């Protein structure tokens, strides 16, 4: 482990001082910097996924286009779906988990700062691993849910699917590690007095999401492991000749896959639940119900997976049960929609850019939700499944929901992260073009779908009645390119040129706004003692929160020696001058992640017949990984 031991810290003080340069990013354990890394990386992958979408839509602009080949197209949509789900939205959410959760609950960091860094590096390496093959035309091509037996050796002899199996396995480890971390953080690092029912809604929804991650990733890990064994070691899990049942893959995938869609949406729900009250000058309407509905959505989410399989012939009993379970989810989701509207009702609504995105989420997600309920009726779904009607549904919930919510979050929290506002008028251009482009892209898909257009086709014949809708969709996509480009420029420029923002530029009510922007590395000079859901409003505008019955039931009595009543921190100190112990920077998570990813990638050599190289790399990677772990676990944290 010489490489790992090499950058050993001559003295901890030196390390504190060094706060820039690549090395400082590689060794950071600060949740905010890790959040920032997640944000940049995920935005990059969002552009990659978007670019893939642009190529897809260009090919589909007109019938019988020859812009890309069939094979390329199949790689494009597979990678588009995989990228957007696993490399864009999930890590964008993770960026907010990292950045915000400790700030919102009044903590100095997450429970396991080094594990947190490990999660990020594993994500980054996994993302690169799965993305790079597209440059060489060997990207995964089995669709984002990779149905067996198309993904077995028999039907996919190239390395394409290997990248997908191994890549997703790697990304899963990242998500799981992060989830254990955040569960512990939220349970155990809340500031004194921050009872569960005083947690900000974003933290609550994130909390639910961590449980979904922890429970949903194991099934796909196993499903992928089977596929990996089939592909590399000749087992028979999905082998037709051995009598395998392809539905096994489908069930295991969707046991993961459906909770996964709530993993994608709940953080966005959380973000808009912060934005809407702030810009309505009112606390969230029906906080408790919002919490319970989030938990309900998460729990029910485990009982509906087979609604993706209404066409496989499960029989009428199973179809009926899964149909009704699915419909049930509309109830808690509806409650959220109505409570958001009620939050704005009787408020003073300021139409800032984040607010516009949050409102767009309500308006657009509802459309996607309604089409979701239309799929949930199995006979009707038989006309919808695997058509563009489904594509319309999931882009309305994913783009109209998750992406809108995440943009709301980015505009809302950019001032906190950088100390500067994003440019408002560029933001407005971004919003309106985005809103129009989005609807123009995806609304026509409802029609092309119900008028018979299957999804995942690289070409279609003229005269099928789909030409107009496809052209509209493609034009809409180009509008999205323009709007996204405006955002990218705004995002880059405003870091240095944006208007300066203070601690609390929007007049928000939760803890993260009580500290300087950007926050100092230790977050809170003194751990605040929390007595309500909107501590900052209690402080600055008590009228807003006067009517809220706060629960005082538990742990309100626990006080920490360092805790002080919530106040606005205007002064910046260093952790040292405050005597706050900070985690040492360390490269161990980075190298441990690297070792783990090389261990997985060793298997690729088996495909090319180099078994001894494969063995060397896998075993070597595993040894490095274990020694990395030992070296990490036996070195002091701070």
């Amino acid at each position, binding site marked *: 482990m010489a490489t790992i031991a090499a950058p050993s810290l001559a003295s901890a003080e030196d390390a504190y001082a060094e706060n820039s340069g690549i090395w400082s990013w590689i060794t950071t354990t600060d949740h905010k910097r890790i959040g920032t890394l997640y944000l940049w990386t995920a935005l990059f992958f969002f552009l990659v996924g978007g670019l893939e979408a642009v190529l897809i839509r260009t090919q589909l602009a007109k019938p019988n286009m020859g812009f890309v080949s069939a094979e390329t197209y199949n790689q494009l949509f597979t990678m588009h779906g995989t990228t957007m789900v696993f490399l864009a939205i999930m890590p964008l959410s993770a960026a907010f988990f990292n950045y915000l959760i400790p700030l919102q609950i009044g903590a100095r960091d997450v429970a396991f700062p080094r594990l947190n860094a490990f999660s990020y590096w594993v994500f980054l390496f996994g993302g690169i691993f799965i993305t790079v093959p597209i440059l060489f035309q060997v990207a995964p091509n089995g669709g984002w849910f990779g149905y067996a037996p198309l993904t077995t050796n028999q039907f996919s002899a190239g390395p394409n699917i290997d990248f997908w199996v191994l890549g997703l396995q790697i990304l899963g480890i990242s998500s799981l590690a992060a989830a254990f971390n955040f569960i512990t953080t939220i349970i155990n690092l809340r500031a004194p007095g921050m009872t569960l029912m005083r947690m900000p809604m974003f933290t609550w929804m994130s909390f639910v999401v961590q*449980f979904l991650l922890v429970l949903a990733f194991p099934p796909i890990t196993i499903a992928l492991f089977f596929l990996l064994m089939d592909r590399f070691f000749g087992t028979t899990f999905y082998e037709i000749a051995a009598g395998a049942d392809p539905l096994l893959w489908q069930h295991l995938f969707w046991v993961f896959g459906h909770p996964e869609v709530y993993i994608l949406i709940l953080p966005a729900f959380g973000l808009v639940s912060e934005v809407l009250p702030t810009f309505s000058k009112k606390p969230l309407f029906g906080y408790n119900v919002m919490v319970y509905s989030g938990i309900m959505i998460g*729990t029910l989410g*485990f009982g509906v997976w087979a609604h993706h399989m209404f066409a496989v012939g499960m029989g009428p009993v*199973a179809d009926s049960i899964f149909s009704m379970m699915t419909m049930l989810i509309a109830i808690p989701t509806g409650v959220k929609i109505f409570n958001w509207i009620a939050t704005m009702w009787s408020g003073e609504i300021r139409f800032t850019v984040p607010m516009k995105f949050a409102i767009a989420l309500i308006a657009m997600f509802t459309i996607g939700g309604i089409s979701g309920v239309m799929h949930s009726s199995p006979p009707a779904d038989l006309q919808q499944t695997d058509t563009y009607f489904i594509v319309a549904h999931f882009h309305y919930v994913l783009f109209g929901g998750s992406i809108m919510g995440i943009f709301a979050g980015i505009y809302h929290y950019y001032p906190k992260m950088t100390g500067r506002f994003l440019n408002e008028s560029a933001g407005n251009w971004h919003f309106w073009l985005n809103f129009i482009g989005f609807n123009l892209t995806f609304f026509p898909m409802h029609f092309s779908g119900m008028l018979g257009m299957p999804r995942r086709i690289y070409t279609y014949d003229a005269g099928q009645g789909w030409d107009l809708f496809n052209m509209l969709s493609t034009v809409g996509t180009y509008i999205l390119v323009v709007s996204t480009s405006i955002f990218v420029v705004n995002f880059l420029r405003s870091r240095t040129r944006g208007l300066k923002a203070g601690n609390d530029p929007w007049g928000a009510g939760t803890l993260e706004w009580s500290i300087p922007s950007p926050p100092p590395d230790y977050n809170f000079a003194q751990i605040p003692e929390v007595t309500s859901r909107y501590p900052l409003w209690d402080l600055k505008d008590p009228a807003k929160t006067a009517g809220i019955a706060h629960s005082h039931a538990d742990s309100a009595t626990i006080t920490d020696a360092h805790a002080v009543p919530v106040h606005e921190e205007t002064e910046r100190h260093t952790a040292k001058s405050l005597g706050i112990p900070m985690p040492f920077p360390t490269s161990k998570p980075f190298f441990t992640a690297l070792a783990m990813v090389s261990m997985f990638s060793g298997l690729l050599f088996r495909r090319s017949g180099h078994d001894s190289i494969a063995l060397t790399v896998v075993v070597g990677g595993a040894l490095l990984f274990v020694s990395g772990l030992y070296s990490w676990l036996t070195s002091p944290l701070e």
Partner: protein
Amino acid sequence: MSSDTKHAAHAHPDGWTYVKVGVILTLITVIEVWAYYVPALVAHPFFNPGLIILSAIKFATVVLFYMHLKYDHRLFRVLFTGPLIIAGCTITALLFLFHHFKTVS
């Protein structure tokens, strides 16, 4: 949180209790294996459910005593039973979907 972990630690059963639990677990295992060799029992419709109940008892015993969930913070109970229930339901549903239970349809 009313329960005091330090105090709870002292309330842990002593070594003999653990040994007794071990004996019970062994006995149940012996019964299970014995039943496996009695053809009349194996043919009985309650054989499988019976075995599952016995193993569930063993499962619960280890979790409650050896993993001292019985004495520990209730948070851990939630962290364990929640997932366990979801896992159990998932297995049941999957077996149903793959026709391992006779259905009326």
